[in-house]
């Protein structure tokens, strides 16, 4: 116990001496929340579109105008298709609408009128927005135009409601969800260097010849960074709820509890990387690849897990951010849902314990790998046989 306390004290002093880790624990959350708040928008994105009208009737002119009035569309008028092509190739516009010259005639006859929509397929998301905006604007226009009378009354009306987030504000889930990415980064990066550094600087050899046991080394690393991580996490949540006013419907105790479980897994990943590789360069490289990138791509924050191919859906199960993202989004927006909390908490605990066991196993108490059991302890009998 005394040894452990000494190691923890040592680690905390080291953290305090090199302020880079403290700075990172508080600066990174701030930058990241600012970006997710103002730089990222997954809702209705504004796009720039080109419009070319070949049907010079006054009615159709109002359609062109309604493109101009939409708050989601910046419209630019074109006279020929060639210009549209160049504009799309240069990413000046993300798509274009071409109204054919028989458009109003067909509508007047009560027929289906074609509207040609061109998108820049190299940016799939915006291409989808272009399509759906064009459709929505055209249909709205149709409903209020003089052709509306002949448009039929729908037999079934679809009433869409969005639960938990009636304003449909993506920031309400993306900002809390981003905590998962920030905490993965902080948890993994800080710890991925610390054990490697002790090996590189030779302090490990001196430590191994004292009464220090594996468990001391392991906990002596876990605990200080856990404290730092929790401080950073609390700061993160404070920014989220108090400064940026993200609505929180859950329970603070539950939030901190599950967050601490998540932190536990992140530290485990970082410490594993560090104790296996014993080299700061390799450790940071691997930490990036198993930490930041999967947290961004496979956590379900940006890309829905349900839409992945089955194999990859299973793959995400071994990654802690998945559970945390699912938990924190729900905790913020739907309040404490016992099933979600327990399921995610259990998974995180299991992962955390597995990682802890792995750190324990990978913490070598010697300067080299333990050789095969046959060589471990030469039995006296074998020794005596030899002359």
């Amino acid at each position, binding site marked *: 116990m005394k040894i452990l306390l000494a190691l923890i004290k040592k680690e905390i002093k080291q953290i305090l001496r090199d302020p880079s880790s403290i700075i990172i624990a508080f600066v990174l959350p701030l930058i990241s929340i600012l970006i997710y708040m103002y730089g990222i928008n997954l809702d209705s994105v504004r796009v720039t579109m080109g419009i070319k009208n070949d049907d010079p009737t006054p009615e159709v002119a109002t359609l062109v105008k309604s493109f101009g009035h939409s708050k989601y569309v910046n419209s630019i008028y074109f006279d020929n298709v060639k210009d549209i092509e160049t504009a799309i190739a240069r990413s000046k516009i993300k798509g274009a609408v071409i109204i054919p010259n028989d458009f109003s005639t067909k509508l007047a006859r009560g027929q289906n009128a074609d509207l040609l929509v061109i998108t820049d397929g190299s*940016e799939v998301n915006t291409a989808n927005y272009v399509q759906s905006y064009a459709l929505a604007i055209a249909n709205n226009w149709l409903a209020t135009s003089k052709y509306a009378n*002949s448009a039929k009354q729908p037999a079934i009306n679809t009433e869409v409601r969005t639960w938990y987030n009636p304003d449909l504000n993506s920031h309400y889930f993306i900002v809390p969800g981003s905590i998962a990415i920030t905490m993965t980064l902080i948890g993994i990066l800080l710890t991925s260097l610390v054990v490697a550094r002790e090996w590189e600087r030779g302090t490990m050899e001196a430590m191994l010849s004292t009464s220090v046991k594996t468990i001391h080394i392991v906990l002596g690393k876990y605990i200080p960074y856990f404290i730092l991580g929790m401080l950073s996490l609390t700061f993160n949540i404070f920014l989220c709820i108090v400064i940026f006013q993200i609505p929180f419907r859950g329970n603070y105790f539950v939030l901190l509890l599950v967050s601490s479980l998540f932190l536990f897994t992140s530290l485990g990943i970082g410490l594993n990387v560090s104790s296996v590789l014993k080299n700061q360069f390799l450790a940071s490289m691997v930490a990036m*690849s198993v930490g930041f990138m999967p947290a961004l791509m496979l956590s379900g924050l940006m890309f829905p897990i349900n839409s992945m191919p089955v194999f990859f859906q299973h793959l995400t199960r071994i990654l802690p951010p998945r559970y945390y993202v699912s938990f924190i989004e729900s905790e913020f927006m739907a309040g404490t849902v016992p099933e979600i909390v327990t399921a995610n908490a259990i998974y995180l605990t299991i992962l955390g314990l597995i990682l802890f066991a792995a750190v324990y196993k990978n913490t070598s108490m010697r300067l080299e790998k333990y050789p095969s059991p046959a060589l471990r302890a030469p039995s006296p009998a074998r020794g005596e046989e030899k002359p």
Partner: protein
Amino acid sequence: MLRDFFRRVLALMKKEFITIWNDPKTKGIIIGLPIVQLLIFSNAATMEVQNIDTAVFDRSQSVESRELLSRFENSPRFRNFYYVDNEADFKKKLDTQKVQIGLMINNDFSRNIKSGETATVQVISDGRQTNSASIASGYASQIITGYGAEVSSSTKPPARGEGVMSGANINISVRNWFNPNLEYKWYILTVIVAMLSLVTTLILTSLSIARERELGTFDQLIVSPLSSFEILLGKSIPPLIIAMALTMIMTGIVIIFFHIPFAGSFLLFMISIFISLLAIVGVGLYFSAICNTQQQAILSAMTFMMPAVLLSGFISPIEDMPVALQYLTWLNPVRFFMVLTRGIFLKGMGFADVFINLIPLIIIALITLTLAGRTFKRKLG
């Protein structure tokens, strides 16, 4: 003199290569890890919404409602259906994220359809993931509207008179240029290639000088007749070559295994990647030059990388950001890197457009490399 210069730079480059390349573990991590990540992320990351699980509360239990639900069951987008018979269960399914959307059909559904009145179906989407929620409910509305159209044409008597058939309608016909089927993979692959090259290059360079400082070898380098400029060259070329090779390997995989057509000029692509990576090398070396320890270097690289990736336009378009942030992205080499890889790869961007995007990258590279070179010696104390 010039020969001395080349000799020294070459020697330093060779040394850098050996330190990076000799260790099989390092080799595997630098080349192997990005490729594994490329394969995983490109297959997994998609914004197309599929495999939607649905909770159904059918109060109507009529032929019509079952007919509507069978449309859902036949749709490839929808996967599992959970039929519930009370509101509490319905809510629970949504609460616990068992399902992404819920369908609620009122008991007057069948009656309304038969009587020609408008029937209502409620679609409830899970706002904890607004983007996939709205896409999923969009699909649901489509199916419902489609069924509605069929029902009305079969139940309503055809309107008599002046040849007005089923009414005026707008048909949207879509052409998706550069990616006819709007495959998300085409988009995400170019993004991932750029992102992985970024990560590798940044870590390789940001640690290179900091590590020498920590181990004391940088003194030895400074005492040698190598000038700052020579050290700068020797330090930037090897990571540049390794990152170039990595990017080329990844591009090859994208073309060969993912069958994505390469639309542009390969030469332009090479030049663009070279300059993009050079700018990133500059940023990395600058961090490395100002930091004393590897920890500081990697943490500053991180603090740069996260915003750079998120503000590169890969998740949400730059035009959509607040104006201040839009200006800020002019400093972000990753932004131009992504525009270039995507533009040349998928759109066949021409020389003039490539050049415009290269200018900011060249400026970033020049500034960061100059700063890094100057900082080598200023840090001597």
